[in-house]
């Protein structure tokens, strides 16, 4: 009994530690005070103000633009690379396989600086485009690694079976390979999306004038103090994320129930 009490206490403490900041954030988005220190009264004015803050809205749109386009491109390139690295033999394959991990393990700040110097060297003007390029660059290895786990010996056999039945290379990839590696592709894309969405360091180095992303915008506010309309925006993002997650869980559990029957 006593043991159980401590177990539950520990669990509650951990959950408080995890979720208290998020709850505080949501509560403060309804705080009538300008400062994030004391709760002075309930208000919805920050939600109204949010839509008048064009800088904030623009950086929000930029963030999603970067995340969606870099995810799409890096998922395509990463998936094809993982498949190619798995299927074909060529010189230096082992070395290339090892090199893939470098962008994952090197500090973001190093990657940020090196990308910046590459752009300067190539005389590329810093803009939203350079942020997208940088995000593609650091996302590809994550996609490759995640897709690679789903490519097994069986994939080769399935491919052979499909070719034996007369399927063209395109149909083999579309009908046979893609469905089997789909879980890896989805998890790779999700990883790329989240990494891009909250990236500060690399974006900081590669962003040009007028190409602010939301994390950069918030980061720059630290000096002047974060206004509660940011709380309002993040609360909205949180709720959207929560709804998406919840529906995924519901779909998943329905699927499992269906399979059980």
């Amino acid at each position, binding site marked *: 009994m006593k043991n159980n009490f401590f177990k539950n206490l520990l669990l509650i403490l951990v959950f408080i530690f995890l979720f208290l900041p998020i709850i505080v954030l949501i509560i403060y988005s309804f705080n009538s005070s300008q400062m994030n220190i004391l709760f002075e009264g309930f208000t919805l004015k920050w939600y109204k103000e949010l839509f008048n803050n064009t800088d904030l809205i623009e950086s929000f749109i930029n963030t999603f633009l970067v995340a969606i386009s870099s995810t799409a491109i890096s998922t395509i390139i990463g998936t094809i690379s993982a498949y190619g690295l798995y299927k074909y033999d060529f010189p230096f394959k082992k070395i290339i396989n090892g090199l893939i991990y470098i962008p994952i393990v090197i500090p973001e700040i190093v990657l940020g600086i090196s990308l910046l110097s590459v752009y300067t060297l190539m005389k590329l003007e810093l803009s939203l485009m350079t942020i997208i390029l940088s995000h593609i660059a650091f996302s590809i290895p994550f996609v490759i690694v995640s897709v690679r786990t789903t490519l097994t010996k069986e994939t080769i056999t399935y491919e052979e079976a499909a*070719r034996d039945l007369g*399927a*063209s290379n395109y149909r083999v990839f579309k009908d046979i390979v893609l469905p089997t590696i789909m879980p890896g592709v989805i998890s790779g894309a999700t990883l790329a999306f989240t990494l891009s969405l909250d990236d500060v360091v690399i974006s900081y180095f590669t962003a040009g004038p007028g190409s602010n992303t939301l994390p950069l915008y918030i980061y720059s506010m630290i000096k002047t103090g974060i206004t509660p309309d940011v709380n309002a925006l993040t609360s909205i993002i949180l709720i959207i994320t929560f709804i998406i997650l919840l529906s995924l869980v519901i779909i998943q559990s329905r699927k499992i129930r269906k399979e059980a029957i």
Partner: protein
Amino acid sequence: MKDNVIVRFDNVSKSFNNTNVIKDISLDIYEGEFITFLGPSGCGKTTLLRMVSGLEKVSSGKVFIDNKDVTNVDPTKREVNTIFQNFALFPKMTVKDNITFGLRMKKENPKEIEKRCKEVIKLVKLEGFENRYPSELSGGQQQRVAIARGVIMNPKVLLLDESLCSLDLKLKKSMQVELKRIQKKLGITFIYVTHAQDEALSMSDRIAIINNGVIEQLGTPSDIYISPKTVFVADFIGEANIVDGKVISQKDDNLTLSILNNYKINIKTSEVFKKDEIVKVIIRPEDVKISPNTLTNAINGKITDFIYGGENTKLIIKIDDNNSLKSSVTDEERYSVGKNVYIKFEEKYIVALRK
């Protein structure tokens, strides 16, 4: 039936990283026959099969299917289909989608696909399972789907790569009958690859025994069992006692040999041996006749092992310190370990081979 060559290997060789896995094989396979490539693992039998499907390229030589040189033809364009070792059913497709995959790739008209799908599902007895997924099927049912997926294409040859190996013994036996039934009904040539000699013996019209990349012997199952051409074949097919023998005399096809410390046997042979030549003598366990009663002109031995096996029991009989013989008996209740027995041979089935 035996006139029309459907698959021809013409001096085919294959090497991977400078090791020759197939060494200059030439072989004709006839229309409508059930031929088995039998051999130990790593002997090259699967490679040979994959050269028919085109999934493996030849290093030199030519492959013909139905008198057309297909050596450089892509597997997608060859009129043969394969049943893979673990069936390779597409896991995200239903039984029906699996079976119709090939026809859909050929862009066959949907009505025709539907009709042929019904036919093959009936042929392999899978009615009612059309909308299941492979993971929801038993091993035997998966095997049937794999067969249906191949035969729906009306291939000229169906290639089976160790297709029964993953099934349990009982299922294996019933699928052997089933495979033979389907093959008879369709009249398609089956090329079957296995390392299991019992499967080969029970299903095949002809067996090609492959070892180290060459065909050791080609013939009907009974041919190969009764008159093996090499010691490897004798040892690989069925069980055999292999002992040294010395030629005493030969008169036409009657050969007199001395085996096991000057015991004389007379056998039939088509080969010509020299006097005093040392040969390998192959004696099947069922031709080692033993008796607990004293016999004249017999070898004396002592039972050291008793291996009960249902319909027949194997006894290991020690002749002297260097020689033991396996004997297969049906009256096992008369024997026990340690007992002295007298041995004679069924001499007409004994084979002598050059070393």
